[in-house]
């Protein structure tokens, strides 16, 4: 069930240039059903900024009721969020949306492809996949080394390839270049990142089981305002990214 909760910050750390890892504690954690779900964060009290910010759940710690968010302090809201300290409360609405479905079984291989700030939700996904005995391969793309993160954590869970646009870490180029160069094969693909990346993956693997996590500007985050719709590929229907997604089977909605 969706809850609105003042959650307590237990840790806030800059893990790469302008990339923050925030840990927050509260009952709401018990409601999280899937990796890839997100929360809607009120970055400051009062009405400025007005809207909540959607941020993916990067890691779940059910024992301590803590969830992790990894986000880029970029615009006004995320910058304010990055200035909060442990002990402070932050208003969280969530968990929201439908995350990555886990359809494979022990012994199968999942390829997890993340681009930039799309990487975080793949971390909890990878943890859950590996705990089920599914083999994971990670391909993570970043602009450059200084904004890359979670490499060690992912490496502990499975093979991890890095691509950077400027070549400052891993292979120079895009995630798709890595997949090609390394001739990676898989039973199921999960991806989150910029739309051009998702499009490329969708086109590259038309016959595979591919799940994509999409982003859109949101207002309500719960399916009521129609801000975040995407037309479905077949027919005149539509899906709301916040409540039907953010994860869709490739080909389900128009990217």
């Amino acid at each position, binding site marked *: *069930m*969706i809850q*609105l909760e003042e959650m307590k910050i237990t840790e806030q750390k800059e893990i790469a240039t302008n990339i923050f890892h925030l840990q927050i504690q509260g009952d709401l954690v018990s409601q999280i059903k899937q990796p890839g779900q997100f929360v809607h964060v*009120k970055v400051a009290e009062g*009405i*400025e*900024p*007005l*809207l*909540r910010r959607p941020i993916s759940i990067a890691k779940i710690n059910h024992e301590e009721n803590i969830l992790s968010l990894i986000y880029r302090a970029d615009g006004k*809201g995320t910058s304010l969020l990055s200035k909060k300290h442990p002990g402070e409360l932050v208003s969280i*609405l969530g968990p929201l949306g439908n995350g990555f479905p886990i359809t494979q079984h022990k012994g199968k291989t999942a390829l997890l492809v993340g681009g930039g700030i799309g990487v975080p939700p793949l971390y909890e996904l990878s943890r859950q996949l590996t705990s089920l005995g599914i083999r994971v391969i990670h391909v993570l793309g970043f602009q450059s080394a200084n904004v890359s993160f979670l490499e060690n954590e992912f490496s502990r869970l499975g093979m991890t390839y890095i691509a950077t646009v400027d070549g400052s870490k891993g292979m120079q180029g895009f995630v798709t270049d890595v997949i090609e160069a390394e001739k990676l094969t898989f039973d199921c693909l999960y991806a989150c990142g910029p739309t051009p990346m998702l499009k490329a993956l969708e086109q590259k693997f038309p016959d595979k089981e591919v799940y994509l996590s999409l982003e*859109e*500007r*949101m*207002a*309500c*985050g*719960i*399916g*009521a*305002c*129609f*801000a*975040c*719709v*995407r*037309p479905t590929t077949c027919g*005149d229907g*539509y899906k709301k990214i916040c*409540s039907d997604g953010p994860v869709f089977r490739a080909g389900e909605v128009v990217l």
Partner: protein
Amino acid sequence: MSRLNISLPGLDLKNPIMPASGCFGFGREFAKLYDLSILGAMMVKATTIFSRFGNPTPRVAETSSGMLNAIGLQNPGVEKVFHEELPWLEQFDVPIIANVAGSTIEEYVEVAKILSKAKNVHALELNISCPNVKHGGIAFGTIPEIAKEVTARAKEVSEVPVYVKLSPNVTDICEIAKAVEAGGADGITLINTLTGLRLDVKTGRPIIANITGGLSGPAIKPIALRMVYEVSQRVNIPIIGMGGIQSAEDALEFFYAGASAVAIGTANFTDPFACPNIIGQLDELLEQLNINHISDCIGRSWKLGATSNYRA
């Protein structure tokens, strides 16, 4: 809560707080969070004859104390609203105000006729901010004669009272208000959003795909209050006020300005419990201020005499 009940044409409200159209869908999402029966009423999403997908995304942008939206009247069409959404809402003890949209007068009439027959629809709200195809895309709500005509035509077919929702993007809001009153409107709702724009600082392009969008939220509250203040002194039909209400204090300002009930729009997005919270807080606020009944507040700003005697 006996200090909060209000009677308006078609509407016997247990309290004068309701979600504004377009900010609450058809209630399904919020019904998972609280019992909709505690609401005074519910203004549901604009409905057109046929289903509409609306505008391309991005559809929203943030502004200082406000937001822009250009949803584009996305809705499943009147048949589906009548046969699926409204019947689903019958489980709640809450009067529905059905928001009617169209791009021709005929469309308004057709939608109004159908929706007014629904069991739980106690009033219609004509959203006359939509562009009028016949008159070159100018909004119905900006030309008094057309505003009057669409009102009169909807009144002819409607089985429930008709409220007309005014656009604030006009030189003289009273002129439009008087026109719809003359057209037979049973009440007025205002304000709809103000047209605004945001541009991306890096690219120079509009943030919203539709280019412009409607500004809502606390930023517009002073404009909404001014319009309620002006209109309530010029017409003899009740007003449901809205625009930037976030708290019971904000709501009370609208009653003082001349509203008989208020609607909550954008606040539902930041706090999905905004409506129930405001209902509770309004009751407490009246108690604190020693006000016996919310109806005592209606129009107090102008009933007290023209000038402020406030001194800092």
